[in-house]
């Protein structure tokens, strides 16, 4: 019996057995194409088709949206998404492509949308038939997110939207966007409102999606331009002027601190996936040679590798301690550190891996001699996406300093 299974409620036990059986019989076949590192780097329709087919079958089997009510397409269970996730990871299934929909749009729509909207949008979100993207950042609104200028002007029952969103992952495949915009120019925070917007059907008719190319050379995110896009008022979430509060629900879930568990899979081991962790770093240090000996024999590198091992273990044990109130001085103190810590630890691990590689750190993905297929330089560069996206590390430190330590708000 696994560690997790020992603590299951009877309902969870039954569900776990079901998931395990289903996954054993329905584990997807090997992908016909090379998969990207994460859903955010899906580039081709072949990749997307394969992953969407998998998400749809997992949803139809009840492994996605488990804890949402049945009325909105969920499973109507309690605390069972965690179980499904554990079993999907155990079965090493591919990741779920509709990551922004599941992790951010779903809880936001669920908590702030009208019933009819939830019933219409969430089933196709869970099944992955509708891919979702997030329209938050703008050229002039990065860390200062509340400075968004994309504007919706009322026109009868409709709104007419103009503006420019950036860093929009998956927008090139997305049917829907969660969109933070301005409905009132005289108030910074209270002038914001929140919409869900169909963008695929409006391509060329008010919406333009253009790819942005990352420093790694990969595509995957985009800029989205709104030019007099007309949307119905029924697509608004929560009240007018409450956009900032709604956005907080999204961000809390994006940073892994929300109430609703996000469906997660993605344990599939293949050449196409590569985890930026210290276990892989140790393997690398055994293979790479430095001064005629394995890098893993170098006392200085061993010390620095252990520093990363310890930080990773600390992060993992933080998650465990987050559920023991008697060992928390402040209820959100540990959760709010997750995103910051995970991204900075991964960045430092990747940076150290490049030192371990030595001369061969110069070799990139197209070189047959590159250690681990050139994944470490890729991971190192991509790690800056993690320390910047979803609130930069600097913004995270402001949040922690102000909300947890109670220090005065910085400008």
């Amino acid at each position, binding site marked *: 019996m696994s560690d997790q299974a020992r603590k299951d409620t009877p309902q969870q036990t039954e569900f776990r057995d079901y998931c395990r059986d289903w996954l054993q019989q329905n584990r997807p076949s090997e992908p016909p194409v090379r998969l990207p590192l994460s859903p955010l780097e899906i580039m081709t329709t072949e990749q997307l088709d394969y992953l969407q087919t998998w998400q749809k079958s997992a949803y139809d089997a009840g492994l996605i949206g488990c804890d949402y009510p049945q009325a909105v397409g969920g499973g109507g269970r309690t605390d069972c998404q965690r179980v499904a996730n554990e079993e999907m990871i155990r079965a090493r299934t591919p990741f779920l492509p509709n990551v922004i929909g599941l992790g951010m749009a779903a809880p936001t729509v669920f908590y702030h949308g009208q019933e009819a909207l939830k019933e219409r949008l969430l089933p196709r979100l869970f099944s992955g038939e509708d891919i979702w993207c997030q329209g938050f950042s703008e050229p002039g609104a990065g860390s200062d997110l509340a400075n968004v200028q994309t504007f919706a002007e009322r026109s009868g029952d409709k709104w007419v939207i103009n503006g420019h969103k950036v860093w929009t992952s998956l927008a090139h495949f997305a049917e829907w966007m969660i969109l933070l915009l301005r409905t009132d120019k005289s108030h910074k925070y209270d002038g914001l409102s929140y919409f869900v917007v169909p963008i695929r059907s409006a391509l060329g008719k008010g919406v333009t999606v253009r790819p942005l190319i990352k420093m790694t050379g990969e595509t995957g995110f985009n800029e989205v331009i709104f030019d007099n896009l007309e949307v119905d008022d029924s697509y608004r979430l929560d009240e007018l002027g409450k956009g900032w509060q709604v956005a907080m629900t999204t961000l809390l879930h994006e940073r892994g601190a929300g109430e609703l568990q996000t469906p997660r899979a993605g344990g599939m081991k293949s050449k196409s996936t590569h985890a930026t962790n210290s276990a892989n770093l*140790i393997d690398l240090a055994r293979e790479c040679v430095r001064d005629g000996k394995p890098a893993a024999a170098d006392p200085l590198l061993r010390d620095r*590798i252990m*520093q990363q091992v*310890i930080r990773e273990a600390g992060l993992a044990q933080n998650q465990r301690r987050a559920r023991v109130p008697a060992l928390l001085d402040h209820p959100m103190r540990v959760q709010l550190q997750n995103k910051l810590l995970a991204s900075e630890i991964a960045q430092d691990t990747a940076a150290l891996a490049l030192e371990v590689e030595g001369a061969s750190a110069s070799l990139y993905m197209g070189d047959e001699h590159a250690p681990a297929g050139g994944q470490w330089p890729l991971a190192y560069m991509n790690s800056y996406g993690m320390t910047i996206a979803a609130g930069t590390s600097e913004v995270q430190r402001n949040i*922690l300093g102000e909300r947890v330590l109670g220090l005065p708000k910085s400008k």
Partner: protein
Amino acid sequence: MAQSDNFGFGEEAALLKESARKFLGDNFPTDRLHALVAGDHTPERMSDCAWEQGLWQQMVDLGWAMLAVPEKAGGVGMPLVAVAGLVEELGRAAFPCPLMSTLNSTYVLSACGDAGLPALEEIAGGSAATLAITNRDGSWNAADTDVHCRDGKLSGSAWYVQDARKVSRLLVSAHSPAGLSLYWVAADAPGVTILPDAIVDLTRDQAHISFEQVEATAVSDNALAALHQAMPAIWTTLAADMVGAAEWQLQTTVEYASTRQQFDHPLGFFQAVKHPLVDVMIQIDQSKSLVYSAACAIAEEPARALQDAHMAKASASETAAYASGRSVQCHGGIGFTWECFAHLYFKRQKHSQMLWGDAAWHRSRLAQLLIGEVA
């Protein structure tokens, strides 16, 4: 074997931690600590071992000194996570007392089988004890001692002995004809001379001890096994103290940064001050999680105990260093003075960092476990 989700930290442990915090908060605020230990500021001062024996006696009466003593020796037999919670609070108060030394002795004696029971019963009866197992070089390897035993009598010297003047019993490791052995000795036995060290830390006392033909009771002829078994608990307990002390450093510095004004704003308004304080918090939380995870592993998954305890002490030593540095730096000029309380914790943490192995020492042993010998 699976571990408890909550580290095994139950209601009883939570109550103990809470009552320790209240007891120390009520009875031993930091100004009282300062008044007690910071009388002589001269760098050449001798260590004067000032402590509140009355408060310590109350703690003994509350049963805190025998928490880790097994029930069959008359103790409470509480799990290490509960003990860690108590020690964290003592570290927060930087309370000078022989609790940690007594706990350390308890862990070693508990690893000696039935032969350890008589000594454990003395601890359960209120006797404080400490380990005298370190040599002149300050080696943290359990096999290294400068004490020998011949014909049942101890000779030689033990160094870096903690709380030597606050305890009535010593647990001594010595080379004997049988190998490395452990002995239980009264601190005032004939032939025992306690020579106090003049130390940086004002909240502790430390000594080297000379043994001249000292009659001793043998506890174990396999000291190495007992010490190796006890070490993870010793490191984890000290790490818990350091986490508590670091939290005091953080909260005190945050308070100062929230009130002290410069450039028309409280210091904490500026990110140059705010962000390092957040980093102190992050490091504390990592260390704290690792402390309770190690404490839980020691009780519930012994195969992981050694590696988890190395992680806890390595992490706590780094946290202590960083929290200490920031606590003085962010107080600015006043932080550099004797009258600001920051130096009391700064010095206690410096002492704790090296005690029972510093961060690099623990990481090098962790690397042996996780990477192994690589040719």
